[in-house]
Structures are given as C-alpha cells and as structure tokens.
C-alpha cells in the first residue's frame, strides 16, 4: 500500500489566510512525506473505530496539507435560481466539509455554479473553512482582475486561495496578473488548467517556465496521458496537481456499473467503483487532489470516504486499469 498520507490537522477557524510560504525544497518535502506517513502508520491502530482520518497531500510550494478529495462544480452546481436544487447543492457542500473536504473548484465558465457555491457557503457559514479554487476565463487580459473580483463576490469569500488560468485562455496576460495578485496577498496560489488531454505541450512549457503552484489536468484509469510527462514534471518542479474529470462526467462509472466490484477492492477499503477510481487517482504520488463533481449528498459522502484508509499500490493500480479498460 502507498503510505503517503497524513492525518488531517485539527480544524481551526480560519479568519484570515496565512501569507504564502516560501517554496519548500524537494528533499525537505520528501522528508515531510515520509515523516507523516510514518506518523500515520503509527497512529492507525489507535484510531480504529474512530472517524476515519482524511488523507492529505502537501501543496509543494508551501507544505500546506490539502485533503486528497475535493469537490468540482462543472454542470452539477449549475442549477440557476431553482431553490430546491440550490438547497440540494448547499447540502452537498455542508456534507463535503463535514466529511473533512476542503477544496472546492469552480469557474466563471460554469454558469450559475459560483453563485450556488456562494449560497451554500453562506447558508452554512463555511466560507472560511474551504480551500476556494476558482479560475479566470476571459479573452481580455485587462478584464481579468475584474472577473476575479466578480467571481469572489459570487463565492462570498474574502479572497480566493487559488486562481487558475482556465484552459490557458490568454495565459500571456493573466499569469502576470495572478502572480501580481499573489505577491500582493490577494490570492494565495496560482495555477493553470486544461482538460481531456488538450494543450499538454503548452502546459508543460508553462510548468517549466513559470513558478506555478498548481496545475489542473484530467487523469483517471482511462485517461493516463499525464503519467508520461506532466505528473513527473510536477513532482520535479514542486507543482501541486489537481485532477479533474475523474469519472469522465459519470460515463466511466455508468460503464463500470455493469461489472461487479473486484473482491480485492476491500483491501483498500473501497465499497464502490467511484471509490476505487478515486483511490487509483490519488495514489499517484504526484497528485494532490481529485475534484469529482456531484450534486448528490450520498455521492459526496461516498467520494469523501475514498479520502481515507489505505491506497492501492502499483500492483492494484495495474489491476484497476485492466478492469476499467475491459469495461
């Protein structure tokens, strides 16, 4: 089993985000990982029967731990002004945070998702307890700051933890803006995103040429192109990796639903295909956080349950791939 996991720190009320920390050297990061893994292994018997500790991974540029399962909002939170659906999404957010989740990801491209997240955070007074990750998505470079501010107001947070250039749209103008905002303490981390394997060469180039904190890519047992270059590069460069589309917007799970869960899934505490796929993803040592999107409370609980317990080793990951590819 892969043991690069941490107990989540006791929750503290966050009234103001700490300033960005300096980049942590790779050797020190490795030592932290090993130390935390050892501490986790030592504590594990003691916590049997207690609520499961949430696995976290450190953000390489700061060492700040982030739970390995987050919450996406593409499609699922775009419910407009429907009060029933907005309350359902608010319940999802409340359950996500209650289960130890922190990172919520959205974009101005996602329709009403930002408003709905703001509604959910406001309803349960959770704005200070989440890791707010959003994106800038506008062609005009001069309008980037204004769009980020509009997004922040919709989220109803004091500031974003992370702002990413969505699909690399006009990264030439937006990245300098984001680095300036980070230097001014207006955001904490800077990232770039892509999905479904697009523009990986550009992503690589930017990872090499800019001091990025985060990169967001698609990764799951079927979409593994990032394993070849981007994930190793992220480790080398100390860049955190967010994984989108872990279930291919549900298509992967619908295909797998026809097959029984393998008996060995219980070895890594998986009770569903969703958990096995999520554990496959976050077991990769370069991955910081996977962000499955859901508007269903049962599903968010199921997803968060994958952020605890043992992770599959290389052999089980290979078996997962073989099973999923055969579905």
């Amino acid at each position, binding site marked *: 089993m892969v043991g690069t996991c941490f107990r989540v720190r006791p929750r503290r009320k966050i009234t103001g985000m700490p300033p960005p920390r300096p980049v942590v050297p790779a050797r020190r990061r490795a030592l932290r990982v090993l130390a935390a893994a050892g501490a986790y292994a030592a504590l594990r018997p003691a916590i049997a029967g207690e609520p499961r500790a949430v696995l976290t991974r450190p953000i390489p540029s700061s060492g700040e731990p982030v739970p390995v399962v987050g919450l996406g909002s593409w499609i699922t939170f775009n419910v407009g002004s429907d009060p029933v659906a907005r309350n359902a999404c608010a319940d999802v957010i409340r359950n996500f945070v209650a289960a130890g989740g922190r990172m919520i990801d959205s974009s101005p491209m996602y*329709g*009403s998702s930002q408003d709905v997240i703001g509604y959910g955070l406001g309803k349960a007074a959770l704005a200070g307890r989440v890791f707010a990750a959003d994106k800038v998505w506008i062609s005009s470079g001069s309008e980037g700051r204004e769009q980020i501010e509009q997004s922040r107001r919709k989220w109803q947070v004091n500031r974003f933890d992370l702002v990413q250039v969505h699909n690399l749209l006009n990264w030439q103008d937006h990245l300098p803006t984001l680095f300036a905002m980070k230097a001014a303490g207006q955001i904490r981390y800077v990232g770039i995103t892509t999905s479904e394997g697009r523009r990986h060469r550009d992503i690589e180039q930017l990872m090499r040429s800019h001091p990025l904190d985060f990169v967001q890519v698609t990764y799951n047992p079927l979409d593994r192109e990032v394993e070849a270059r981007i994930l190793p590069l992220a480790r080398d460069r100390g860049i955190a990796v967010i994984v989108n589309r872990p279930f291919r917007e549900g298509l992967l799970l619908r295909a797998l639903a026809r097959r029984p869960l393998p008996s060995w899934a219980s070895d890594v505490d998986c009770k569903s295909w969703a958990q096995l796929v999520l554990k496959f993803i976050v077991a990769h040592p370069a991955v910081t956080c996977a962000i499955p999107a859901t508007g269903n409370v049962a599903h968010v609980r199921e997803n968060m349950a994958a952020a605890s317990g043992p992770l599959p080793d290389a052999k089980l990951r290979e078996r997962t791939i073989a099973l999923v590819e055969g579905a």
Partner: protein
Amino acid sequence: MSEWWTYTLSDFLMFAPRTYYRMIELYNVAIWPAQLVAAAVGVAVAVLLAGRRGGRDRIICGLLAGCWLWIAWSFHYQRYAQINWAASWFAAAFALEALLLAGVGVIAGRIALRPAGSVRCTVAVVLVVMTVFCYPLLAALTGRSWTTSETFGVTPDPTAIATIAALALAGGRIRLLLLIVPVLWCAVAAATLWAMDSRTDAVVVAGVAVLALWPAIRGTPATGRLVAR
C-alpha cells in the same frame, strides 16, 4: 478554441438535463396562464394561414414577432441565461428575428405568403396546428412530467418550427433572411437535446423543422403574386 477537433457535442453542454427541464417547469409555473394565450395565438396563425383574410400576412408576422420577442426576454434572457451563458446571444438572436418579422413583414409588408388551398399551405397549416397541440405532448410521450411541456409562443423550439412552416410559404429571397434564425435555432436545439440524451426530442425538432422547411427548399413559387412584394 484550440484543438477544436477534440471537442464533442457533450463538451458544450454545461448543465444537466434535469436542470434544463426543471427550468422549463419553473418557467411554466411562473408564466401560467400565458401558455393558453400563446396557444390561442398559434391557432390564430393557423386559421389565418388557412384563410384569405386581407392583411393576413402582416398579422401573422406581427403575431410571430410578439412570440419571438417574448421568448427572447422571458425565456432566454431571464431564465436560460442563468444556466447557459450562450443564452444571452440566443436572446439577441430571437430579438433580432422579432425585429425582422416586425420590420419586413408588418411595417414594410414584404412578406407574401402562398394563399390558402395549395398543398404546401395545407402542410404548413397542419404543421402549425400540430406544433400548437401536439408538441406539448412530447414531454409526456418521452417520459417526462407534463409540467415540462414546451408550448408554442412561449418556448423556443415549437415557436421556431411554426415560424419556419409559415415563412416557408413566402416568396422571394427576403424569406431566406427571416428563416436564418429559426433554422439555426432548430439546429442548436436539436444538437443540445441530442447531447442531453433527449434523442427523441432532438429527432422531432430536426425532422419537423426540415419538413416545415420543405416548401422553401422547393424554391420560389412561380406565380407573380407569390413572390415578394
């Protein structure tokens, strides 16, 4: 859009089907009983198409213009734009179509529809009647709640189909100008429904739109009274 060839229809769908139909359900509740008024407008269009009343073409264009303007504001701009940022552009396109119908058809009077009695006119009348009375049944027939029914005059798909059916009876190139938005909308709607896995609805919208367009595809009527004035 980089690497455009890697995109599929579903990549452009930014809302869940249940969200879309829930929006229609809430819209239907909010505007009730406007659906009845709209249905009466649809019947009026069909009756006018089937008759020889003076000024019929202007009245039909005026009624359709009102429907397109209502949908631009009440459906696209106020509601659909909440879950689809492209709907702001749809609203602008629908408002433009309303202006064209009002300007070209009502004020300038340059739309001359084929008179009643011809086969093509009968087909158009039947299509308009079916759009008014049968299209709302599609929701129930495809397993959705009847509260998600889409009605002529207040929702875009049946309105676009009925408009195509009526305008396809017009002569002259001016009709092509007025057909652009309804035809494009039917293409967008069918693609959206297909991506939503509402395959039956998609086929109905595309199929009936092509059927409605048939008289226009067959070319400008030969008689002088049928061409644009």
